[in-house]
């Protein structure tokens, strides 16, 4: 089963052909992400997957992703941070955004000895303005944004 893909195309734009992989098991957020991405640019498409396994398959595929967005808390024992590590291994330099309901200080504790390098972090519940700003910035900066939160 392929990831669910949402795409719409208009006139050429800075985000034409930009593609995002979203790993989130709460499907109620799909509607919100669709609107947030549309508000950034109608040309952004995204693949939606609900499990870390599907995300790993997508990351191992030839499909290019300009950004990966993953929830930290997933069903089972795998976290979004584990998926980020997989992304780093399979796609060095892959821009990544991690989101979670956990507080930023708790998130830093979870990082343990990895605190020098970690993905940008978006707290939940999602603030649509902050979410839109972070996604726009990560798409604009591309792989330069890879370690920006860790520096």
């Amino acid at each position, binding site marked *: 089963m392929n990831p669910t893909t949402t795409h719409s195309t208009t006139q050429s734009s800075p985000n034409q052909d930009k593609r995002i992989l979203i790993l989130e*098991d709460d499907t109620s957020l799909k*509607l919100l992400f669709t*609107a947030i991405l549309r508000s950034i640019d109608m040309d952004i498409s995204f693949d939606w997957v609900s499990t870390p396994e599907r995300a790993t398959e997508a990351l191992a595929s030839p499909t290019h992703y300009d950004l990966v967005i993953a929830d930290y808390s997933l069903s089972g024992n795998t976290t979004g941070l584990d998926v980020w590590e997989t992304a780093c291994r399979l796609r060095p330099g892959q821009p990544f955004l991690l989101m979670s309901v956990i507080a930023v200080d708790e998130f830093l504790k979870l990082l343990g000895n990895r605190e020098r390098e970690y993905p940008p972090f978006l707290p*939940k*519940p999602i603030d649509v303005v902050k979410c839109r700003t972070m996604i726009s910035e990560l798409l604009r900066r591309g792989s330069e944004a890879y370690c920006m939160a860790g520096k």
Partner: protein
Amino acid sequence: MTQDPGTPCIDPKVLSKLYELQDEADPHLVADLIRMLFSSAPLRISRIVEAIGTGNARVIERESHDLKSSAANLGALRMAGLAAQLEQNARKGDLAAIPALVEGVKREFELVRGELEKSLEKR
């Protein structure tokens, strides 16, 4: 996710940001999100009640997690807080307090429904 005692049923700032996004991206976004909560929350609560009967903490944790997320996205922070407590108790396997918490979620959901219906009528 804990709240101050004065936390409103619906955080107006969250709704107003959603309405702003709606105007830019999707003319029915907020109504669609609200309808989604109205249809999914009772189902999730029923699944939690059923899981209490069978002692299935995993289902309670999963459904509470999604309930928390759906409520928080619409600014229903008190309901999200109660769902977060449910989730935490289920994760720890502490099922004793869960029936009372579910009753709290049910009551709060009715308040949330009333507030969100009013919000839709105003638009």
